[in-house]
């Protein structure tokens, strides 16, 4: 690789950094003021690109092109304002988990809306009139448009910075970033401030999406890719810090550019190393390192204390007679199911999926509910379990039974390593870091063809002959599911489980009575990882294959929805939630084209109307949850 080649790649990185900064600065501004981590920010970026495509179809010439860019930004800003007024305004006081989920639900709705309006084809945008050529730099051609982008990024930074430093509105935004309750107490119209900030953030994302159009086509996968990048940038730079977002955007874009520029090298001991394959891993690794060394990002500050906490949970009580009877009856019915529906029935297939889902959901609930750690990357441990089983069976030739046991170890080992980093953080930063680790696992699996089979995954992962019949595997899955649920339940009522809840309730008090908070949380994380790994192993053998798609961020979110659907406060919640979710998904996905949007709307309804989940709502209705009052 020549020096000029590297330099041109670095310039390319600068251009990418500009759109990345536009995207991330909006996210950062919104978080700073509203304390909402806007998962839908990638969707706004995507909308910007699509709207710009439609506008540039109708508006020609240089003037038309740039007007289209501006109008796209305004349109997305207006959409942002609408989102803020209709949805977010209702959930500012909700626990942050709900806010993350509500905005994630938006991404589902927006994605299907985009597919409905613009179709599933990638839409290639026009080149910018007057900037469609290229200039020669060090003997290599470099697009003029990218040069323009390199200028636009810092220009927007300067404009927003002036807006924040020189106007009354900017002073209010900065004040709210430091202490929004105080700003409210001083009589500032918070609704107006929040709406305008959200609109500005959305407009910046829309502008970023629009400006990216001449470089890459608008596609429906843009949202998740964009939000992943934006999270990394904002977390690395420090939540709420504009200059931080700029520096981090430069850092991330340049590291990616460097990976591409380095290309493929042959190693002295044989084999090759292909740096372009590390682009995904590299950015999340940077984030993980920054979070561990500087937990608040390069230029961020520690999160201000949140004064509007959710009310404390009611104490856990052992199952009463009714619950026990329901539990045993369900178990009896499930044991008899293959005899009732017949051995070849689809109900068995769906039930196996549900058992696996329940195991996945209860393991997530274990860290999320009693542990208070909101993991957004739980799919990682599912994936590690699944791949551990699959690879040990296929490549190492382990017998299936042993491979399944090893899935527990796979999940636990992953949680052991990642958990060590994660328990050093809390709140939103914990969620981000778990998400990052989830993405690292996903991208390693996706890009490491030689071992994991890349996007094709591992196939031919079938159970041992004596377990191969559907109804036998059904009983295996049921047994594992029941064992996992009972184990976690037992632990929750043990001294360790109490200590786990203690660390969630008060770190200060835990520390003052000799509880090593991080160690307790770490061990809980490992226990959950082990159970989750088993779910992954069961999954691999039930499908006969495992691919990166099945362990993507979507699965992590499914897990969160299952837990919240059932209710995070109760132990039966995740079980009911997982069953309801998978049943719904199965019946909706088969009959409705836009089932993702349906799922999104379901989540929104859930968050707005039933913040306690199904089991919580039933309990309240029955008056069982009213011990407190």
């Amino acid at each position, binding site marked *: 690789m020549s020096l000029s080649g590297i330099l041109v790649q670095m310039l390319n990185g600068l251009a990418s950094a500009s759109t990345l900064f536009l995207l991330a600065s909006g996210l950062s501004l919104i978080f700073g003021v509203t304390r909402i981590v806007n998962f839908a920010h990638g969707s706004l970026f995507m909308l910007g690109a699509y709207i710009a495509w439609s506008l540039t179809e109708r508006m020609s010439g240089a003037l038309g092109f740039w007007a289209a860019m501006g109008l796209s930004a305004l349109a997305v800003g207006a959409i942002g304002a609408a989102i803020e007024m209709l949805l977010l305004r209702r959930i500012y006081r909700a626990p942050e988990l709900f806010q993350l989920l509500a905005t994630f639900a938006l991404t589902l709705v927006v994605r299907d809306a985009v597919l409905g309006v613009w179709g599933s084809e990638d839409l290639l945008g026009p080149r910018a009139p007057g900037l469609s050529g290229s200039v020669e730099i060090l003997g290599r051609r470099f697009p003029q448009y990218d040069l323009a982008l390199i200028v636009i990024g810092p220009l927007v930074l300067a404009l927003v910075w002036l807006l924040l430093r020189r106007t009354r509105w900017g002073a209010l935004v900065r004040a709210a970033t430091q202490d929004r309750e105080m700003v409210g107490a001083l009589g500032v119209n918070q609704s107006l401030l929040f709406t305008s900030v959200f609109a500005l953030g959305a407009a910046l994302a829309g502008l970023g999406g629009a400006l990216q159009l001449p470089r890459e086509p608008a596609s429906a996968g843009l949202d998740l890719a964009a939000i992943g990048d934006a999270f990394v940038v904002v977390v690395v730079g420090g939540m709420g810090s504009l200059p931080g977002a700029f520096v981090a955007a430069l850092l991330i874009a340049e590291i990616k550019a460097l990976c591409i520029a380095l290309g493929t090298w042959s190693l002295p001991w044989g084999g090759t190393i292909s740096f372009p394959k590390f682009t995904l891993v590299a950015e999340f690794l940077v984030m993980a390192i920054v979070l561990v060394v500087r937990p608040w990002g390069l230029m961020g500050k520690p999160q201000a204390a949140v004064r509007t906490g959710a*009310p*404390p*949970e*009611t*104490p*856990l009580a*052992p199952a009463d007679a009714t619950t026990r009877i329901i539990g045993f009856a369900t178990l009896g019915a499930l044991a008899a199911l293959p005899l009732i529906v017949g051995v070849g029935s689809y109900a068995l297939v769906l039930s196996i999926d549900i058992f696996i889902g329940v195991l996945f959901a209860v393991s997530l609930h274990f860290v999320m509910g009693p542990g208070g750690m909101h993991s957004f990357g739980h799919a990682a441990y599912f994936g590690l379990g699944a791949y551990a089983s699959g690879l040990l069976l296929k490549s190492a030739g382990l017998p299936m039974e042993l491979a399944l046991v090893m899935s527990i170890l796979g999940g636990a080992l992953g949680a052991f390593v990642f958990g060590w980093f994660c328990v050093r953080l809390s709140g939103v930063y914990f969620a981000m870091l778990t998400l990052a680790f989830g993405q690292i696992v996903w991208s390693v699996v996706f890009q490491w063809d030689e071992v994991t089979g890349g996007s094709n995954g591992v196939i031919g992962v079938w159970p041992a002959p004596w377990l191969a019949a559907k109804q036998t595997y059904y009983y295996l899955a049921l047994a594992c599911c029941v064992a996992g649920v009972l184990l976690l339940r*037992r*632990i929750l*009522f*043990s*001294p*360790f*489980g*109490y*200590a786990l*809840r*203690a660390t*969630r*309730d*008060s770190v*200060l*008090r*835990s*520390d*003052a*009575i*000799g*509880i*090593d908070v991080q160690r*307790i949380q770490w*061990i809980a994380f490992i226990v959950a990882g082990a159970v989750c790994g088993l779910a992954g192993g069961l999954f691999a053998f039930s499908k006969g294959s495992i691919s990166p798609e099945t362990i993507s961020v979507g699965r992590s979110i499914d897990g969160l929805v299952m837990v919240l659907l059932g209710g995070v406060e109760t132990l039966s919640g995740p079980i009911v939630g997982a069953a309801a979710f998978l049943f719904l998904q199965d019946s909706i996905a088969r009959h409705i084209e836009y089932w993702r949007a349906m799922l999104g709307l379901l989540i929104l309804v859930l968050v707005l109307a039933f913040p306690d989940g199904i089991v919580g709502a039933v309990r309240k209705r029955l008056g069982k949850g009213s*011990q*407190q009052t």
Partner: protein
Amino acid sequence: MSLLVVDRLCKSFGGVRAVDDVSFSLAPGELLAMIGPNGAGKTTCFNMINGQLAADSGRVLLHDADISRLPPREIWKRGVGRTFQIAATFASLTVVENVQMALISHAGRLYRMWSRAAAFEREKALALLAQVGMAEQADRPCGVLAYGDVKRVELAIALANEPKLLLMDEPTAGMAPKERNELMALTRKLVVERGIGVLFTEHSMDVVFGYADRLVVLARGKLIAQGDVDAIRNDPNVRAVYFGSGKTVERARA
């Protein structure tokens, strides 16, 4: 022999010397009050003794062993109980479970995953709650208690590891006068019965002069006086800090 020795403790935040060269000691069975105006450095001092904050310089000795570099949980294991200015308990556990949690930790059983925590030394926990007058409310969630009751639960938690030293940061803040006297009388009783040393901060002068054996007075991070109640009451430095010297008024007149 002294139970606690604080030796030339210093802590600065930026340019502010929050605690500046503070030294004092505390004997077993003694109730020592730390007083001073707001911002005098009382809580900072507490947090350094408790291990939450690292001192810039100076030492904290417990039974002649240096504890100034230990984390709070290690200091607790050596027999130091603590209550906070804003009470900290486990809101989602019941009152008795809160105390049991401390007992479990004291017995070194935190990592047991199979036995049932609710059965662990419940009687002992109830006895501790009875001492602070909270036995009737043992099975209520701690999150729904009145604030004064939470403070009493906190005291029961702090007593669970049979401490030799209790650190109480404003134990009676937010309580009604009658409750205050009850709590302090209880503390006084425990000190005598068990030979515990207590260091507490307090704004209410009734409580301080009514219950403390000895006082140390901080102002602007410095220790300006220490001694028994009468000595402090008549100390000109203390009077100047609390009531002013009258000089500003004279200057204004001139």
